[in-house]
Each structure stands twice: as structure tokens, then as C-alpha cells.
């Protein structure tokens, strides 16, 4: 009895090894099924989906105008204190009234977890996620960014 079981086991083992080796042989002869990509070489063909969360950017139009009112809703929504909004008061040329506007929109990329909560919170759609993904730099301070462009101002009509 022992001998029969032993021989059964040996044949069972050979069969199971052959099954595994058949898979190996299959992939050896079907190169098309291999799906690895060479990372830096695929940049031209790489297509990231439009919802991809790369980094937060502020949308500017061709007149260098944005839609940010400086309401700080995004700053409050952010769990990591990634956003800091510095506001100033603009004086309206026609009426002479003071109006709140952003001076600097500070964004700490090194703190951001790409949770999208700031984008969801913004009432005017002034910020969005960009598709960039190579964020490594040599100096940490380079990751602190100013999102509003120099000389930009708020688009007329955005409240």
C-alpha cells in the first residue's frame, strides 16, 4: 500500500510540474502577452486620464485672469494645511470701493495627498488637478508653489 501511494504521489507531482511548465512554455512562445513598459521611453505614448490627480493648479485664461475670489473654502477643506491664501484689498478704480482679492495662493506640493477635497470645495471652479506626475526635485523649497500667475487678476463677473 505504501509503495502504491508513493508511486501515485510521484506521478501526481510530475503531472503538476508539467502543468506549471506548460504555462511557462506558453508565455515563452507568446511574447505579445507581456505587458511591461519601459518607463522613461513611454512618455510620448503615455496618456493619463483627465481625472488624474497630479497637482493642484489654478486655471488662467489667455488674458491672465483667474476665477479665484479668495474665499478660502479650499484652505478650510484641505486636511493637511497644504493651501495658504494670502489676501489683499484691491481698490476699484471706478467706484473707489475696496474689494477682497488674492495676493498669493501658496500651495505646498510636499504636503498634498491628492484627495481632491479642495477642488470639490471651490465654489467658482478656480482650481483643478493637473496631469503632471514627475515631482521630484533636489530642494524641498521648490515644492512650495505660488499658483496664481504674476500680474494675474480676477475675471470680471466672478463673485
Amino acid at each position, binding site marked *: 500500500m505504501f509503495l502504491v501511494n508513493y508511486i501515485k504521489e510521484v506521478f501526481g*507531482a510530475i503531472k*503538476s510540474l508539467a502543468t*506549471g511548465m*506548460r*504555462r511557462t512554455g506558453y508565455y515563452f512562445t507568446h511574447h505579445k502577452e507581456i505587458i511591461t513598459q519601459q518607463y522613461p521611453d513611454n512618455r510620448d505614448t503615455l496618456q*493619463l486620464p483627465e481625472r488624474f*490627480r497630479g497637482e493642484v493648479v489654478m486655471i488662467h485664461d489667455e488674458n491672465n485672469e483667474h476665477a479665484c475670489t479668495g474665499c478660502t473654502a479650499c484652505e478650510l477643506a484641505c*486636511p493637511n494645511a497644504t493651501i495658504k491664501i494670502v489676501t489683499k484689498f484691491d481698490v476699484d478704480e471706478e467706484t473707489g470701493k475696496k474689494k477682497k482679492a488674492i495676493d498669493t495662493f501658496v500651495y505646498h506640493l510636499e504636503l498634498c495627498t491628492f484627495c481632491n*477635497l479642495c477642488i470639490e470645495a471651490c465654489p467658482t471652479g478656480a482650481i483643478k488637478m493637473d496631469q503632471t506626475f514627475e515631482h521630484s526635485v533636489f530642494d524641498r523649497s521648490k515644492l512650495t508653489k505660488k499658483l496664481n500667475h504674476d500680474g494675474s487678476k480676477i475675471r470680471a463677473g466672478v463673485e
Partner: protein
Amino acid sequence: MYRQTEILQDATQVSPLNGGGDLEGAGDLIINVGPQHPSTHGVLHLVITLNGETIKKVEPHLGYIHRSIEKMCESLTFRQFIYVTSKMDYLSSHINNHGCCLCVEKGLQIEVPERAQVIRVLMDELTRLASHQLWWGALGMDVGALTPFFHAFRERELINDIFEETCGTRLTMNYMVPGGVMADLHPNFQRRVHEFIKQFKLKIDEYDELLTDNIIFKNRMQGVGVLSAADAVSYGCTGPVARGSNVVCDIRKLYPYEVYNKLQFDEVIETGGDCYARYMVRMKEMRQSLSIIEQLIDQVPEGEFQAKTKAVLKLPKGEYYSRVETARGEFGVYIVSEGGTTPYRIKFRSPGFSNLSALDHMARGGKIGDLIAIMGSLDLVIPDIDR
């Protein structure tokens, strides 16, 4: 000069390996596995007491990746704290977020639209598949087969691409928000899920060929790390670990949430209690998840994907608990609210911690080589154990 400790000297003198002494007389050898050992899948530190090759005691040491998430959540609002939970069990981040959303919705009595419920279940099951695939590959690697790892990642990549398209990220999505989901399904979602199902149905048989029926793998898993049903219950094991020991514990069946009570699927139960039984539970669960996805993917109802909620959420004073079934077991969220915008106290019941506590019991008396197989079959995710 290399300084020999007392313990090492003791063991080298009488170890049966170098011809000295028998096993009874051998001194105990204490070795550290981890915190940077590749087979612990993270910063788990095990202090193992050995007698020869036999394990006398396994002592897990935690704390290397403690981030104090529960305390941190107390300073975050009810919208913000959800994203942190994706950083606990990062392989079931959708399901973790789901549990938190359920708890907040319970407190606020928000009715989640049907479409959002279906999307959530779809995402949960895709996450479970992705998690089990990674576990399958990693387990193969633990017991010495490298090929499964590449096969598993090939299919997991498809799921990650689906997530990336709809949720924006691949691992820590933060896609579920109180009241529904953050964004509607991507127009390509259905097509890509169908493609994935088609491919995975072929490949899961390949998984079986490579590992399930392999004689070497079977010999390493069968009869190793046996956990009886009574022990599984007393250690508080949940998920595939308990179901491999013949314990009925699937939250999706016992306490159905969202649309799970309308779905046709079986709770997978194995009676063996050994590593192979746990392995089989997960393999069969993958097929169950596939069938759940198939049932839902063409039935996503039209409508809103998010219920209308206030901008600032304030949970009424009270205590709330909700539970979901992650890929590793029961995940519970317990919130105490004082009526403010932030939780007064939060406690997470993570499945990994309880499952890990049974490791010592399972490994005792076994060989040190089996410890790695047992750990692999527990499917540990360290940030989940050590929050």
C-alpha cells in the same frame, strides 16, 4: 570585532545543526524577523524564540508605522477624516472609505441614491479583487515562486487603470464621500470592466494551474498553521482567515449594507483551517467578486451619484458604529460625536490586528519555514494593524 551575545553562543554550542547536543538540550535562539524583512510585507517586527528549527514563541512588535490616525481624525472634519482611512489598509482603501461614509451617513440620516450605492459596491468588489490578486502574487513569492507575482500584477494593473480613470488615483482614492461618490462613473468604465472580466476569467484558471494545483505549493500549505474554529472566534479573526476555519462571518451576508442583500453570491467557507483552506477561500472569493461585478455592471441605475448634503457636516450628539467587509475581514468604525464638526472620538476596528494576534497560536510547534507561509496566508497589511 563581532560581539557575540550570550544567546548566540549558547545556541552555537549545542545546536543540533553543528553536531552538538540533541533538541531537548538545545538552548533557545531568539531571532528578529523584520522590521525590514521582505517577507513581512512591511515594517512588522517578529521576535521568534526557536528551539532548533521549531518555533516556541512568536511575538509581534508593533509601532514602526504608527501614525496615530485615530487621534489625528479628531482634528479633522467629517469630510476630511475619510481620506486618512485609505492610508490604513491601502489595499482596500475604497472599502475603508466606504465604512467611514456609512457611519457618517448613519449619523446624518442621509439617503444614498441607488446609483451611488451600486457604484460603491462595484468599487468595493474591484478593490477586493485587486487586493486578493496582490496577496496571491505575494504569497507565491513568500513560498518561493516568483512567477505568480508578475501574473497577479498584470491583472491588478487593469483594475488600477479603471480606478485611475474614474477616481483619479490608483491606490488611495478618496472617491467615496458622505452622501455618495465624488464623481460619476467615467464613460469608459463599463467597457473597461467588461474587458477586465473577460481577461480575468481566463487568467484565474491560469492562477489555479500555477499555484493551486502545484504539488510543491500544496505540500507547503496543507496542514500548516491550523486554526480551529473556536480559536478563530476567540482571537477575533474575521474575513478569509476565519472563513478558512469554518466560521460564518461575512458582513456582506450577515449585516448587508448598500445593495448586497439584492445580490446573488455565496459566502465562501472552508473547513480545513490550515493555510491551504485560507488560500482556497480567497481564490473562491475572487470568483464570487467577479460574479457580483457581472451582476451589477450592466444594471447601474440612472440618477444622482451624490445626495445633497450640507457644506459643513455636523453629526448629532451620539455614538455611531458601522461595519463593512474589507478584503481582510471586518472593518468597524466607531464615532462618538458631541454635535460638532469634528468627531469627539474615533475608533477603528481593523481586521489585520486581530488576525495577526492568532499568528503565535498557529506558528507554535511548527517549523520556521512555515512561519513565512502562515504569514502569507494571513494577508497582513501592516499600516492597517498599526494605525
